[in-house]
């Protein structure tokens, strides 16, 4: 016959029924708990000063940074701000006869009116690259249609 088990007859394990924690555990536990609850030391933040700066200063810095970025992008990747050489420089080596032929040919979109206005706005501009002789000029003029001759 089974003997009924009764709690009050059983010797109670005191203070606790399970094995003890490692030696020194309760000596170290307060230190470990305090380490967790202690406020963490503030880490140095490289831009912390910026957060404390006045709003006007932050706005100014942001604007400067934006402009600088824009200028840098233009300088590094955009078109050159000024042409490396004047447009006339590449024309110096072209014979005058070819220039006249090009300008008076029907394939260009430059008409005689443009040719008449250009020297009026930029006096002497043709002296750098166009030195036609009187014969060449006469021949060129003679080749033009009679109705446009009055424009010259």
């Amino acid at each position, binding site marked *: 016959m089974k*003997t009924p088990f009764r709690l009050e007859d059983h010797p109670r394990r005191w*203070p*606790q029924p*399970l*094995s003890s924690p490692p030696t020194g555990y309760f000596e170290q536990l307060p230190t470990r708990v305090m380490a967790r*609850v202690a406020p963490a030391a503030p880490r140095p933040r490289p831009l912390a000063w910026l957060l404390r700066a006045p709003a006007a200063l932050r706005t100014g810095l942001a604007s400067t940074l934006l402009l600088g970025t824009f200028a840098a992008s233009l300088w590094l990747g955009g078109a050159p701000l000024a042409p490396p050489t004047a447009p006339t420089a590449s024309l110096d080596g072209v014979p005058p006869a070819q220039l006249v032929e090009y300008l008076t040919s029907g394939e260009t979109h430059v008409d005689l009116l443009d040719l008449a206005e250009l020297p009026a706005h930029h006096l002497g501009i043709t002296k750098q690259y166009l030195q036609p002789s009187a014969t060449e000029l006469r021949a060129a003029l003679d080749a033009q249609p009679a109705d446009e001759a009055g424009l010259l």
Partner: protein
Amino acid sequence: MEDHEILAKFREPASRNLAFNQLVRKYQQRVYWHVRKMVIDHADADDLTQDVFVKVWKHLANFRQDAQLFTWIYRIATNECLSFLQSKRRRFFLPLNDVGAELAAKLAADPAVAGDEIELKLQRAILRLPDKQRLVFNLRYYDEMPYEQMAEVTGTSVGALKASYHHAARKIEDYVTNADHETPSTGEVD
């Protein structure tokens, strides 16, 4: 140091750390063992005990002295234990019996219990109780806590606690008595 002294010092920023250190030293063993009996494993009990005191630190400034300090700490520890066991089941989608079996395996590996057959049967029987009933049993049987304090800790009426304890004790006695004739697997029973 008395609780009211600890609380008074804790309110002063200059002595806050010192007061809390005293509080941990005063209650660490009771909290640890309360937690340990619920989770069995020392590593889990260690983590949870620290978590309990971290929570105590965070909320101690708001502690109202209409309850005893240690019952308030016990209440935090109890909630931590129940949450831990609940999340363990939820995390691994484990049925109740599997968590009970895991705790029983840890229990069987505990050298303080392993060599004592009756004690091992008793601890297995305790592990088969539902978490809350196991908690009630531990508070009463091992900690000898008065029912009134248990009511503060668990938020349950004294009458319900008495009924729960006696029901748990009867189930344990039945289990240990008939343990030789039952399967060795452990787990929670209602």
